[in-house]
């Protein structure tokens, strides 16, 4: 009895009806696809190349950028000014400040 009910339910589930799709469904999809551009398939290396291409500079730009970088590097790599003139001016400033303190 229970087996019959199972079987009948299975048959009912298998014979559920579907309203058929339009005969031209596939053609409509194909036609619509023709008007749509396809996104290009970009690999990791292609995307990296594109990224670097974004930063492409004309030749004078490279010269200017190189000069700027060189200037910054040289500026930071030069030791602090310890010339006798600089030390003298530093001593005079210290002397001036010390004189003020003695007045106070």
């Amino acid at each position, binding site marked *: 009895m229970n087996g019959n009910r199972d079987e009948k339910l299975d048959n009912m*589930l298998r014979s*559920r009806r579907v309203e058929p799709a339009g005969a031209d*469904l596939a053609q409509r999809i194909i036609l619509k696809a023709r008007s*749509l551009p396809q996104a290009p398939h970009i690999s990791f290396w292609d995307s990296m190349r594109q990224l670097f291409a974004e930063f492409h500079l004309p030749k004078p730009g490279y010269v200017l950028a190189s000069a700027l970088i060189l200037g910054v590097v040289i500026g930071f790599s030069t030791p602090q000014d310890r010339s006798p003139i600089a030390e003298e001016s530093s001593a005079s400033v210290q002397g001036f400040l010390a004189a003020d303190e003695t007045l106070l």
Partner: protein
Amino acid sequence: MYDRVRQSQLQIILDNAMPAAWPDKDDHELLERIQDGNGQAFAALVERHSDRFYRLAYRYLQSKEAAEDVVQDAFLKLWENPALWQPQRNSKFTTWFYRVVVNLCLDLRKRKRPAPLDDETSVIDERQPADEMMIRAQEQNALEKAIGTLPERQRTALNLCFDLELTNQEAAEIMGVRLKALQSLIMRAKTTLKERMKDYL
């Protein structure tokens, strides 16, 4: 730039010269060609599979127009971005695409509740005698209503196994569950249906 224009012109010529159906090419081969922008391969894939995906979408949406729209959207997404299909991650195209269609259907259902099925919307086979037709229509209607009240996962399991006649293993793969879990879903669904359909069984 000129080369790209020439290439696309050449592709159009090749597309038109090739036959629409490629029975000797499997889905993987067609998808590889689609990834190279081959429209004819896309056409072959659509012609091969649109009906079965429509059937699945129809089960979820109970509307011809909505189901057709979902199938169209799914295929156009694939065309626009063929890299979505990753053969190394997906074992079989149909398994992956069933999942795409199911997700689109669920999204659509979330946005728009389906119209309740009434007597006029049930599909009647005109080859059967009138009385039998009436009984069949009532049965179908009751069954659709009963299935409509099932939890989403149970309904999906039933649709995949009974309606699309996929194996339990395939259905489990599509749903992303273990085989035992799928069998349990089907069993629970059938228990509920037997209870709700007792007048017809």
